[in-house]
């Protein structure tokens, strides 16, 4: 995937007319059906199942995913796959939710961002893939990646790509103002002041108030663990834990001083900011470099990649931002074929290689992550730097015990209304963090969770 946030951009194009539109859509439904598949613990005879003819539908926002799908169809000639681009994440999820509620129209296989997997698991929309052979490919993925898509022995999605966070920076601007690449957050703050003083039109970075995934990635790096569920109905909400307060105090200082900008990202204004040198760094995930090449073509050769600045230089850490998976919808009439597609796309060596080279996804499988060809690719846009190697090293420092809430849409939306709003108004973020915590706690209780 390109970003969790091109989502936010494309949300702009969602022109549903609010409540009534929903009502019309849902009205066509005749009650819910959660039929086929799920819940079986016996493993399925995949070899036999996959010989049966089947036609399945696959929703993905990835350009050119048809190429990988062709590899699959070649291997299983009796299975036909219909690829549908249902739009960027925030366009796809409402469609998917509506189809699930309506009980018809949902695809067999669907691309989900990693942080959405629990949100669709709790509504019992996803098929447990373990009986379909998913437990056998567990070893192909790093442990923490696998943890993001599984619960106990159940597997609800297959990881497609990941997004360890790093810092893309403008070497030319850094050189011009004699700024050393900051390795700690303290150095980062000093550099921010220095740059903005030297050029009042430039900011060391932009922290987007409309994109909870960036801030969450930064919280993740600092060790914040906003959600923890002990049982299916119990949730510990710690959005304002001490690590999150530390991060928020830090960014409050930067924002209040006016040394960093707080523009919404993934819109025209922001693209121009990246291309014009308004922002000297972009704190983003491993899919960022490719995205940047397409967006700020004129700045080719001026960018470099470094790890995120650190809280503790001796213990380098990072967070993850974005990344997506392939999941199978429980109502699928051909669960075996669907499960096979989800697994093949993301674990077959030819397919994962193609995902990394053609779609420029940052790999999820260990094999692809360690493939020398992938690691040693040098990108002219980044002055010939081996960008994949930098991010591959960063990936090893991503802290692994982070979990998402079962209603992540709501969490990100409330981020915009609380912390995001405080960013735009250049107010204290730590106070807003408490509001965020309170909103999410209230929502969780209303949804029937016991909150501790």
């Amino acid at each position, binding site marked *: 995937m390109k970003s969790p946030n091109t989502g936010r951009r494309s949300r702009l*194009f969602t022109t549903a007319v609010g409540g009534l539109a929903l*009502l019309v859509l*849902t009205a066509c439904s005749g009650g819910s059906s959660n039929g086929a598949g799920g819940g079986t613990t016996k493993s399925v005879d995949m070899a036999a199942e996959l010989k049966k003819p089947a036609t399945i539908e696959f929703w993905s926002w990835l350009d050119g995913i048809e190429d990988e799908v062709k590899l699959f169809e070649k291997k299983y000639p009796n299975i036909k796959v219909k690829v549908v681009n249902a739009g960027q994440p925030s366009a796809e999820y409402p469609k998917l939710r509506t189809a699930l509620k309506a009980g018809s129209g949902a695809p067999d296989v669907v691309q989900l961002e990693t942080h959405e997997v629990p949100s669709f698991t709790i509504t019992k929309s996803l098929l447990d893939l373990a009986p379909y052979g998913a437990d056998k490919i567990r070893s192909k993925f790093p442990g923490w990646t696998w943890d993001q898509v599984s619960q106990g022995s159940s597997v609800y999605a297959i990881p497609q790509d990941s997004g360890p966070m790093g810092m893309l920076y403008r070497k030319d601007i850094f050189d011009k103002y004699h700024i050393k690449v900051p390795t700690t957050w303290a150095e980062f703050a000093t550099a921010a002041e220095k740059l903005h003083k030297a050029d009042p039109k430039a900011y060391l970075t932009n922290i987007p108030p409309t994109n909870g995934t960036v801030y969450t990635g930064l919280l993740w790096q600092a060790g914040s663990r906003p959600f923890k569920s002990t049982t299916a109905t119990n949730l510990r909400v710690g959005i304002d834990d001490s690590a999150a307060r530390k991060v928020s105090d830090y960014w409050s200082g930067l924002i209040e001083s006016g040394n960093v900008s707080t523009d919404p990202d993934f819109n025209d204004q922001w693209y121009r900011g990246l291309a014009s040198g*308004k922002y000297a760094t972009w704190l983003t995930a491993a899919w960022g470099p490719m995205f940047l090449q397409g967006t700020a073509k004129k700045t080719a050769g001026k960018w470099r990649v470094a790890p995120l600045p650190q809280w503790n230089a001796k213990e380098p850490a990072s967070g993850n931002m974005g990344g997506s998976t392939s999941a199978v919808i429980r109502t699928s009439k051909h669960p075996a074929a669907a499960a096979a597609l989800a697994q093949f796309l993301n674990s077959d060596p030819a397919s994962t290689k193609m995902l990394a080279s053609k779609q420029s996804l940052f790999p999820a499988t260990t094999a692809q992550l360690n493939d020398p060809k992938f690691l040693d690719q040098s990108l002219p846009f980044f002055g010939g730097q081996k960008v994949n190697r930098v991010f591959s090293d960063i990936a090893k420092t991503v802290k692994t015990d982070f979990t998402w809430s079962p*209603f992540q*849409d709501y969490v990100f939306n409330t981020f915009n209304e609380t912390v995001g709003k405080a960013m735009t108004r250049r107010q204290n973020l730590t106070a807003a963090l408490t509001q965020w915590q309170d909103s999410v706690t209230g929502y969780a209780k209303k949804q*029937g969770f016991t909150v501790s």
Partner: protein
Amino acid sequence: MSRTVTPAPARPVPPPVIRTTRRPWRRSTREALTAYAFAAPFVILFVALLVIPLGYAGYLSLYREQLVGGKVFAGLANYRQALDDPLFRDSVLRMARFLVIQVPVMLGAALFFALALDSGRLRFPRLIRLGIFIPYAIPSVIAALMWGYLYGPDFGPFAQLARGVGLDAPGFLTPDWILASLANIVTWEFIGYNMIILFAALQSIPPTLYEAAAMDGAGAWRIAWHIKIPAIRQALMLSVIFSVIGTFQLFNEPKLLAGIAPDAISASYTPNMYAYTLAFTNQEVNYASAVSFLLGVVIVVVSYAVQLASHRRARRS
């Protein structure tokens, strides 16, 4: 000139006293059936696309479904919650304020242009009519994106112009100004539409009235004020009612601008945006239904009040 005046074919006079009830009854049945057949396409669509969804929404609004614990009957609890919900109340009040300011400006301008075109004193009337109407032909999504660019604080033309002459960039997208900026977009979009309605109504006024008035010595302004505007009162009323409904249902423009003005436009900025957020982001479909229903009630009440007020005035004058 010899011309036989053929009398109009005599209408069948109903027999004065005795009347066999069967035949006319049959005929009226047939007429009724024909009428129903003609109305059927509308009725079917109306029922399928409006009545049934509305009924279903009403049904949904009486339940509450949780992520944990499933679906339970909630009675009117969703409505009680909505009435106490400051986010919903604020969104409705915001649109009421929008209505009071934007609609008179828009209709005033539409009326002015319609009268100007009707006066026949403009050069290139067709070009002008088309020019004013074109914004309505542009999809509102495109219009909002375009205005979003024009309003842009860094690269928008107004901002660049202001900076060019040494001023601060105008804060179109700040919380203080966003309502006015939205009102500007909506006005721009709908002046032409309302102008066409009013212009069409003006065209249907018999010109003899103007001749009579001119003979009595009335000038163009007096004719406009005393003849034209009273004559198109019905059309004006229609425009007002449409604008009331449109205003409370505002969605596309604020939804699109929210992307570039996140602190000025929240997810509950208009009632429809709030219902959308509740249903699609928060997964609170039942509560969203209740909010949508209440919004419908608000629109009915305001529209009715506007109509009532205008009728009273019409009767008085």
